[in-house]
């Protein structure tokens, strides 16, 4: 039984650490979003609570907790309660798979990229459920829009991930990040032109998947009051917010791992774990990874406060008429490019440390 | 008591029967579809359990389970398209009202 107890501890510790990381980073992101939006609007943003207003989110959190927990009488009570937790679960589960550093992941399997796609598709469920269970037609519209948008944008997002998997020859996110060690021109985004396009498509799909502007049709306030979370207040509503900021971090993290070198700093010749030891090296790694993710999250905020919201038909057309064909072309392009590196130019650019798909089969045949 | 194959098979049987009950009881056409999904899942669980408990079926079992999952996806897509079409014609998805073909 001690082995079992040890296993349970080994499961609980990462879970608690990650859950608090999600909550704290949500606090930070909400403050950052206010500051960024204020600067873009030429305002100051929160300044009163704490230095630079950094305690503002905590004050808001206390206000939210003390608010009345109201469930509208026409709502489906059970599903109304499920909604926020399911949304948060969908945003939280991918953190379990995300590699924060060399060997710093709660769950490292050979299928982690596939598993990541699987759990990331769960998040939409909470939103749809919330929209449906509120018993409000605006919420229902928000839910339907959200489901249509998410299901559509999953297609190009998945194709972009498949592109990287083909180029890297593995489904293990940690291995993909390890392949990109060294200077930043080793990152997969700079590997070939198709992956370069793929990154931007992936990031666009990520923004759409987080329901962020310009794709926030599920909560378009000028049309739908507040969309799927119209009827929510207090703590339940804050769960939706944590889910949104959590999934922003996750999609940025996935973009980092797949295209931007994961935890590699990009200006060190090799992984710092080699010459600093596992713990100190990973300290550098984790900091680099989180900073990269924060940069991408900042770009998302920048986009949100810069671009106008699309119409729902424009959102669907962007995905199905433009992004999906672009992805298909890039997919074939990446496949041919990988094949060309491995067959036509064997031995060239071996410093890219890139086995590719044919190499996998060769490995197996040994 | 260690977990044996029979545990998995009994669980799959419960799933299958629940699916059958769902299939027979629901008047909503989508409910019938949900019942079918449950039954297919029971089948998949059976195959996976067999694959695990006899190593010579390990790969076959997984391949067939994936086959079942993909078939379920295909079936759901077509069935929902049919349901939507039927709803468009009859403005109802109550299958007890779907009696046009009876003559």
């Amino acid at each position: 039984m001690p082995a079992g107890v040890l296993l349970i501890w080994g499961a609980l510790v990462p879970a608690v650490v990650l859950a608090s990381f999600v909550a704290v980073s949500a606090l930070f992101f909400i403050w950052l979003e206010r500051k960024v939006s204020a600067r873009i609007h030429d305002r100051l943003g929160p300044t009163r609570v704490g230095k630079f207003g950094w305690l503002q989110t905590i004050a808001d959190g206390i206000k939210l907790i003390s608010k009345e927990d109201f469930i509208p009488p026409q709502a489906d009570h059970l599903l109304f309660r499920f909604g926020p937790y399911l949304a948060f679960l969908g945003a939280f589960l991918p953190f379990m798979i995300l590699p924060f550093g060399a060997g710093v992941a709660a769950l490292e399997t050979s299928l982690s990229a596939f598993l990541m796609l699987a759990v990331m598709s769960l998040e939409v469920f909470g939103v749809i459920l919330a929209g449906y269970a509120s018993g409000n037609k605006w919420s229902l519209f928000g839910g339907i829009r959200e489901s249509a948008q998410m299901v559509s944008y999953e297609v190009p997002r998945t194709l972009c991930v498949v592109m990287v998997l083909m180029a890297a020859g593995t489904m293990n996110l940690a291995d993909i990040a390890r392949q990109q060690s060294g200077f930043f021109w080793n990152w997969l985004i700079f590997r070939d032109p198709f992956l370069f396009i793929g990154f931007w498509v992936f990031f666009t799909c990520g923004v759409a998947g987080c329901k962020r502007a310009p794709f926030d049709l599920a909560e378009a306030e000028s049309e739908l009051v507040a969309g799927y979370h119209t009827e929510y207040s207090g703590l339940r509503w804050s769960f939706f917010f944590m889910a949104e900021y959590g999934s922003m971090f996750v999609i940025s993290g996935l973009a980092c791992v797949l295209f931007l070198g994961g935890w590699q700093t990009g200006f060190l010749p090799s992984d710092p774990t080699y010459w600093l030891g596992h713990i100190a090296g990973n300290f550098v790694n984790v900091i680099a990874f989180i900073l990269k993710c924060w940069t991408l999250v900042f770009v998302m905020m920048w986009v949100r406060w810069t671009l106008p919201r699309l119409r729902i038909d424009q959102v669907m057309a962007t995905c199905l008429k433009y992004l999906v064909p672009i992805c298909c072309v890039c997919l074939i392009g990446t496949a041919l490019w990988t094949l060309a590196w491995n067959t036509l130019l064997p031995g060239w650019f071996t410093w890219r440390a890139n086995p590719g798909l044919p190499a996998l089969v060769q490995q197996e045949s040994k | 008591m260690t977990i044996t194959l029979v545990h998995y098979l009994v669980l799959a049987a419960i799933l299958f029967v629940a699916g059958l009950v769902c299939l027979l009881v629901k008047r909503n056409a989508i409910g019938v579809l949900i019942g079918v999904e449950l039954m297919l899942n029971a089948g998949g669980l059976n195959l996976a359990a067999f694959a695990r408990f006899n190593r010579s079926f390990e790969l076959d079992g997984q391949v067939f389970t994936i086959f079942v999952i993909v078939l379920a996806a295909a079936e759901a897509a077509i069935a929902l398209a049919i349901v939507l079409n039927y709803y468009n014609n009859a403005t109802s998805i109550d299958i007890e009202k779907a009696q046009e073909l009876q003559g």
Partner: protein
Amino acid sequence: MSLPDFIFWCLALLTAGSAIATAVSTQIVRSAVWLMFTLAGVAGLYFLLGFEFLGATQLLIYVGGILILVIFAVMLTAQGSFSQMPASRGHWLVVIVIGGGLLAVITSTLLSTSWEGFSASPLTKQTDTSNSDGLALTFLGSSQGEAAHPLPAVPGQIKHIVHSLFVFEIISVHLLVVLIGAAYLARARRARREAA
């Protein structure tokens, strides 16, 4: 009770309980939510069995795909909020008799069969790498799947080599056909509305 067994009982309880709730619930969206818990439970069982690829596929296709589709269809066909269509009491009686009878027959058959060759303690932790690589190579039709993942020879049984390229091709073509079919059905609907 070891930890895998304990996890099995938890997952089994979750799966069976929500399966029954799926069948019993009169409201269709609640049914779908219980179905989600059932599917997640089955995915958990696949993970427990060591088939990570199956578990992830189950989550991706069922929970992320089919279930969203189902809820989408419910929303598109809803008449009034939270419509219920309960079955009659006699109907329920017949169904319970049929279901209970079937369950009794299956269970008694399972318990009376001797499961020779299906060993009782295979829940050892094996490296998932070989597992999913073997599966991938099998799907590619490569006999190296066997080489990478040698199967133990069972006495009295012909050792067969698994090639699943054909299955893989059938799945692909099947999905393509379904895609076209579903698109056709949706298209036909729009054409009819314009004609009317």
